[in-house]
């Protein structure tokens, strides 16, 4: 099992969710995060006072999948989240030791 973590542009969320649904991903967790990378920040201006905003709003998606699904899931996220401009985000894949469904106590791939 793998934990797939994707950082994406906020406006791409619906596209990514649909794409994941199509490849059979049943659940994702989304958090609003801020980040700093190659996209850099932007400038805000209030009555002549200029502020550089370094951290930009992004969304972090997390989903646990069985190892054989990883390739399709990554492909789906890339397809849906690409805008072609700097700042489209990243995907991190890490090994997942165990998954447990709280309601039933099921473990492993059953619980995903």
């Amino acid at each position, binding site marked *: 099992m793998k934990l797939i973590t994707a950082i994406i542009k906020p406006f791409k969320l619906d596209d990514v969710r649909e794409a994941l649904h199509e490849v059979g991903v049943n659940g994702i967790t989304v958090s609003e995060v801020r980040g700093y990378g190659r996209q850099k920040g932007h400038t*805000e*201006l*209030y*009555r*002549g*006072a200029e*502020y550089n*905003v370094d951290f930009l709003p992004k969304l972090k998606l997390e989903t646990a999948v069985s190892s054989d699904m990883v390739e399709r899931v990554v492909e789906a996220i890339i397809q849906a989240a690409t805008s072609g401009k700097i700042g489209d985000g990243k995907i991190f894949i890490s090994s997942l030791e165990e998954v447990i469904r709280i309601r039933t106590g099921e473990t492993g791939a059953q619980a995903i």
Partner: protein
Amino acid sequence: MKMMNSRKLMIRLSAFGLAAIPGIALAEDVLDSGDTAWMITATALVLFMTIPGLSLFYAGMVRAKNALSVMMQCFVITCAVSVLWVMYLYSLAFGNDVGGFVGDLSKAFLAGMTVDSLSGTIPESVFSVFQMTFAIITPALIVGAFAERMKFSAMLLFIILWVSLVYAPIAHWVWGGGWLSEKGVLDFAGGTVVHINAGVAGLVAALVLGKRRGYPNHPMKPSNLLLTMVGAGMLWVGWFGFNAGSQLAADGGAGMAMLVTQVATAAAALTWMALEWIRYGKPSALGIVSGAVAGLVAITPASGFVGPMAALVIGAASGLVCYFFVVKVKQKIGYDDSLDAFGVHGIGGFVGAILTGVFVDAGLGGSGLADGVSMADQVRAQFIGAGATIVYCAVVSYVLLKLIDAVIGLRVTEEQEEEGLDLAQHDERAYNLH
């Protein structure tokens, strides 16, 4: 009070060249229901400017952790000034003249005022509440200068002393038959009494209190510019009560005051937006509303005396001058007038006060200069009015602030400032979104 109405009447008559007719008798005051209906409405509009107009305008511009504190300050000022007004402020401003400087205490606790008391063609009760709403918004404007760092207790004490020792006398000088009205200073709705006065007090407060922690390097972004735009819209609408109401009658003068107010405000808003668009590449919402308020301020002293074309010029001039002051000069000098109470109200009020002396000229579409008064004379009178207000207000405000600082301290602690005044001073938050 009576003096003021006769003075206004004389100004109105002079527009028709009647002031020079010798021995003209002013008819006995009779209640006019049209005037009364309009003045009750106008009074409600001016109160609406402070709560919630100005309060929202300011709350949106401060950081989220201080948003409630500025609304609270405007609200308590409304309450405190209302109570003080009926106790003695009305009398200090509009009681019998004492040496041209202040009113006596003959009207303290509204002595002698009944349902039948008249002020011109309206009930004195209505006149008194109308003027009360001006005494409310003036100190509320100062809140913008010391926002985000002043102790609530010190703020309340300062405002109580300030309306008593600064606002009431200056209102008397200009509107209560005091020495500035004797000098022929024209201030229709309060460019000097309200805006220069509040702006200068704000500047002094900003200087005495010192900068907010981290200013100007730490970002201090407005918490909610939607509230600021809503508040600015309410100020604009309420301002018709302020300016057209200052005619104290439902007549052509009030109508013209309404027209010039609308025109000057729009011109100033567009000017500020255009300057920002040219300079920074984008027009901004905060910019256009800042320009609108600058225009409202500048047309205030002129609104009963000038025509619509002059209003365009006054609006554009005010938008231009206030823009450069707020965006350039303040940044350069580096004092921390949090929400630009001085940059918009002080500077805009000054621009309006001086230009009133120019555009009152009948040749420029105005209601006309008084007999034997040249434009240069009038402009000189306007400078005297503005200058006297600036000096008196600055000196007394400075002394009051220093005294309060020595006795109870003006500023919250650094920790409290970091935490935000909402929690530090009120144990509440403006936003509990989670």
